[in-house]
């Protein structure tokens, strides 16, 4: 079969993800789809996947995507006539340490928040369900009855047939050799069988996705890792519908297969495969059995399933699986290219994800917009840092090694550091800074007081930084603190059409006089919040845009993608041009006045303005804005002068008690003030109305903007959900997010953020309430499977009238 000269969409890769994407494109979008597979369908890594299908993830949206997979696998056979091997066996996760048990209590709460019934059961109940398990060391287990297992190749073949039934053309034995580009757009896919002109390319190339992407200039930061599992002979007494087992404390998993067991594990010392290109051909291919490496799992598996002592190993499967630096898959519109989408890097849950991910990818590619909040898997969460293959390998191996470790709250990665440091790194380090890393940047999380160890000690309850962060918090509330936020992403938008373009993209009014700031959201066509940022008008035709560190690639791409065609606008990333020091607290003006001759009085420099201020001989941009709810300024300093300005501020601030403070205090301060965080409190799933940000939308003006139509339609209608603040009376509760919100005993939502407010002296959570009368009723939160009384509020807990901010 030779390739057609033209196709609307070319899907590259005939693994389960490519097949699912082609299926959804053909079925739901009636798209003219060609899928190209270099070898045979499934011959990359789908064919050797173990086939466990779990659904619960820490993100509600991803959980929804995985649930969608299960729905599809249940019904696909009826449609295509090809079985998927789906068996709803349920999944048991075993806990044998107290920390793990706490983790499971939180997990069960998360499941409830996301509408899934996860039970926590006793070792005796585990024994009844799975008599061959040794349960002596167990504290208990979580039980999710709706999880299961399936046959990866069968699902892929069934999806392939479904795609063909709906008109897609799936061609085997054709390899993509390059792309013909016009600017940032692919116009032709070049193959071993000739070129195909197309509108859209979807790269589902599995471990080849990186090479395929590179041919169009895009980066797909994944790393193939050697993952091993064994298949045993029949195990006497093993039931055909035995639940899948995940035994994270022993780093292993089990699944029944034709009377025997599939057993594999996630070792702390995984072995990466190549960081270069994948050797070709690599079709239905495995690596040598590596028993020496696998022995660690054998010992643990025998201890858990003693029957394994006497059965033989039929087969060892040692195959490459694509993993990523943060353990999540890679989906969406590549920022470097106008029309390539990616679905790859599935971290060994590709079978569980493919059904839903293919749906999401098809929607995304055909509508140009993700169908729901997919931020945690969005390819735009990466940056140029992720083009470094060795860095990606190191971080990916760490993530793989942590797959089954207890996930402590606030845990930081250790590998690949220090990668990017601000000019203040050494100055902060000597002051006791304990750093975290975000998109490669070392950022101070907190400062260890003299005499204490400058290191996070991870525990499931309050951690060692709780006290020092409280002191930092109070310093900002009562005196003045200095944050190094140099990692902020920064852009300049300039040109004759800059104001028109930004007015079209931003929901709030950015067409304000020069010198004014605007806090604004950028919305998708559903009115969901895609970006949350500050826009400063520097000149009639020049804007300075500041957003969160992690959103650098995402927000830039969002803006770039929505600049109207033909507009004369230049968008430039200037992140590394400026260091950012954020001076906050009631004495901030005193400190600033001591280092500059510029009038910084409230009258001369009111809230919501930007001015050029001179400090230590350096002209810098001062933005009067806050994310902590205090009087203060963001100082954006030409990078080389950041150290001098820091020194000047610290010297001048000494009489006022100024000290550097970190990101954990920033978090507690913003929670207390009710400021929303994009990615958790406000996401593409949430409208400004729901988020309580209706005031920041220019509906009253007649200016059209992206998302306006959706908001107009929603205006005045009852809200589906509403963001609220919660506090608990019990002061020792640890809130982390995803705790279930109960109203009169009924689940009505979950926390999107959780933490502690040191000034109000209470745990705080933010979360959406899905109820027509959120103001009434008796509220409780389910925290780690325990119900605690809570109070709901719709105003900031701290300074609701902004007296502090506007002082």
């Amino acid at each position: 079969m030779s390739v057609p000269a033209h196709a609307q969409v070319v899907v590259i890769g005939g693994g389960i993800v490519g097949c699912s994407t082609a299926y959804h494109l053909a079925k739901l979008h009636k798209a003219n789809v060609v899928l190209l597979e270099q070898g045979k369908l499934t011959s990359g890594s789908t064919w050797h996947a173990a086939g466990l299908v779990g659904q619960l993830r820490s993100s509600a949206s991803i959980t929804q995507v995985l649930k969608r997979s299960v729905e599809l696998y249940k019904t696909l056979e009826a449609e295509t006539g090809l079985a998927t091997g789906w068996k709803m066996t349920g999944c048991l996760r075993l806990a044998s340490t107290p920390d793990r048990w706490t983790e499971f209590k939180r997990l069960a709460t998360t499941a409830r928040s996301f509408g899934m019934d996860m039970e926590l059961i006793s070792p005796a109940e585990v024994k009844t369900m799975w008599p061959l398990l040794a349960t002596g060391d167990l504290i208990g287990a979580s039980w999710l009855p709706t999880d299961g297992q399936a046959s990866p190749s069968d699902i892929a073949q069934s999806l392939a047939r479904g795609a063909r039934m709906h008109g897609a053309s799936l061609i085997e034995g054709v390899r993509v050799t390059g792309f013909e580009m016009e600017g940032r757009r692919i116009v032709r896919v070049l193959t071993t069988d000739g070129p195909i002109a197309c509108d859209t390319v979807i790269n589902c190339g599995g471990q080849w996705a990186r090479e395929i992407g590179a041919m169009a200039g895009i980066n797909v930061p994944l790393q193939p890792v050697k993952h091993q599992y064994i298949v045993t002979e029949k195990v006497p007494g093993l039931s055909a519908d035995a639940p899948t087992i995940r035994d994270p404390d022993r780093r292993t998993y089990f699944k029944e297969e034709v009377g025997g067991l599939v057993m594999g594990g996630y070792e702390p010392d995984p072995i990466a495969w190549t960081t270069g290109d994948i050797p070709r051909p690599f079709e239905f291919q495995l690596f040598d059995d590596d028993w020496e490496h696998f022995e660690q799992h054998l010992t643990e598996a025998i201890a858990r399933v003693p029957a394994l002592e006497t059965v033989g190993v039929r087969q060892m499967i040692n195959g490459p699986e694509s993993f990523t630096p943060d353990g999540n898959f890679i989906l969406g519109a590549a920022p470097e290219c106008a029309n390539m989408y990616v679905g790859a890097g599935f971290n060994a849950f590709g079978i569980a994800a493919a059904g839903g991910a293919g749906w999401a990818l098809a929607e995304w590619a055909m509508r140009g917009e993700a169908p729901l909040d997919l931020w945690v898997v969005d390819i735009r969460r990466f940056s140029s840092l992720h083009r470094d293959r060795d860095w990606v390998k190191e971080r990916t191996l760490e993530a793989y090694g942590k797959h089954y470790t207890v996930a402590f709250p606030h845990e930081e990665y250790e590998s690949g550091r220090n990668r990017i440091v601000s000019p203040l790194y050494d100055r902060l380090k000597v002051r006791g800074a304990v750093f975290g890393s975000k998109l490669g940047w070392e950022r101070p999380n907190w400062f260890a007081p003299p005499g204490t160890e400058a290191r996070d000690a991870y525990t499931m309850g309050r951690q060692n930084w709780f006290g020092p962060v409280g002191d930092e918090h109070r310093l900002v509330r009562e005196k003045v603190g200095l944050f190094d936020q140099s990692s902020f992403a920064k852009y300049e938008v300039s040109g004759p059409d800059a104001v028109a373009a930004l007015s079209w993209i931003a929901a709030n009014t950015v067409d304000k006089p020069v010198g004014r700031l605007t806090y604004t959201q950028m919305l998708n066509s559903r009115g969901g919040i895609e970006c949350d940022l500050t826009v400063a008008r520097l000149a009639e035709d020049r804007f300075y845009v500041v957003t969160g560190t992690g959103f650098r690639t995402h927000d830039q791409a969002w803006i770039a993608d929505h600049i109207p065609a033909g507009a004369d606008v230049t968008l430039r990333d200037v992140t590394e041009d400026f260091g950012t020091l954020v001076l906050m607290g009631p004495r901030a003006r005193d400190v600033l006045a001591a280092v500059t001759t510029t009038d910084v009085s409230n009258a001369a420099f009111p809230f919501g303005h930007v001015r050029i201020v001179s400090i230590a001989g350096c002209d810098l941009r001062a933005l009067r804005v806050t994310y902590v709810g205090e009087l203060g300024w963001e100082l954006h300093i030409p990078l080389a002068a950041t150290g001098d300005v820091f020194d000047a501020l610290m010297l001048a601030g000494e009489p006022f008690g100024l000290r550097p403070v970190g990101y954990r205090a920033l978090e507690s301060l913003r929670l207390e003030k009710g400021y929303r965080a994009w990615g958790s409190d406000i996401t593409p799933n949430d409208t400004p109305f729901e988020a309580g940000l209706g005031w920041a939308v220019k509906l009253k003006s007649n200016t059209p903007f992206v998302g306006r139509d959706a908001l107009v339609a929603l205006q005045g209608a009852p809200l589906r959900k509403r963001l609220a603040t919660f506090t608990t009376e019990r002061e020792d509760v640890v809130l982390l997010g995803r705790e279930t919100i109960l109203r009169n005993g009924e689940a009505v939502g979950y926390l999107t953020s959780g933490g502690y407010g040191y000034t109000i002296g209470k745990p705080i959570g933010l979360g959406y309430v899905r109820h027509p009368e959120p103001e009434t009723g008796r509220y409780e939160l389910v925290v780690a499977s325990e119900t605690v009384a809570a109070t709901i509020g719709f105003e900031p807990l701290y300074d609701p009238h902004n007296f502090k901010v506007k002082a």
Partner: protein
Amino acid sequence: MKILVAVKRVVDANFRVRVKPDGSGVDVDNAKMAMNPFDEIAVEEAIRLKEAGAATEIVVVSIGPAKAEDTLRQALAMGCDRGILVLHEGKTEPLGVAKILAAIAKTEAPDLMILGKQAIDDDANQTGQMLAALLGRGQATFASRLTLADGMATVTREVDGGAQTLDLPLPAVVTADLRLNTPRFVSLPNIIKARAKPLAKTSAAELGVDLAPRLRTLRIEEPPSRPAGIIVASVAELVARLREAAVLP
């Protein structure tokens, strides 16, 4: 009663080999490797003899690169007692291997040597025969049945047209055919135990054997690919087609 078994690390039987473009050999750079299936049968037979009380010790030998240790460990996990790895990078030929095994047989003095009838990589089917000749011992190739009694081995061989049964005095060389037995799957505890079993490493030089190739490969070619078949609609058409092709009168 000591048995010596030889095992070879070869390309996995499931791997689809490809001839290198220059015809100089087969591309196995990324191939999964495994124990030669006929050698697995040889190992299994030795273990069964030991389990039946007919043997007391099984020594397993491999000649190959450092990774051949994995193959020896597998034989040890199946039930062999100790291993000898003759480290050698590069190609081996039947005569060289036979000389190595003969050298080892001289020090180990086994009562029985069981080899696979051939390795699936080169299909030479020569090593067992050469080993018997070098040692001046009897040989029974293509064994499908093997029993030991009173210093004699009774071997049923698969030959053209039927089975031939031989008695031969020990020590002797036997090469295993497919139907001799079905090798066991190893159990998990045995995989772990195998890691602690003794494994000696030596080299051809230490054994005084020259492994330099004596054969020259002229060219390797893929077998001609089979032309595509046709689907016929009926038995009548099938018969007609077969007549056309002069398969049927």
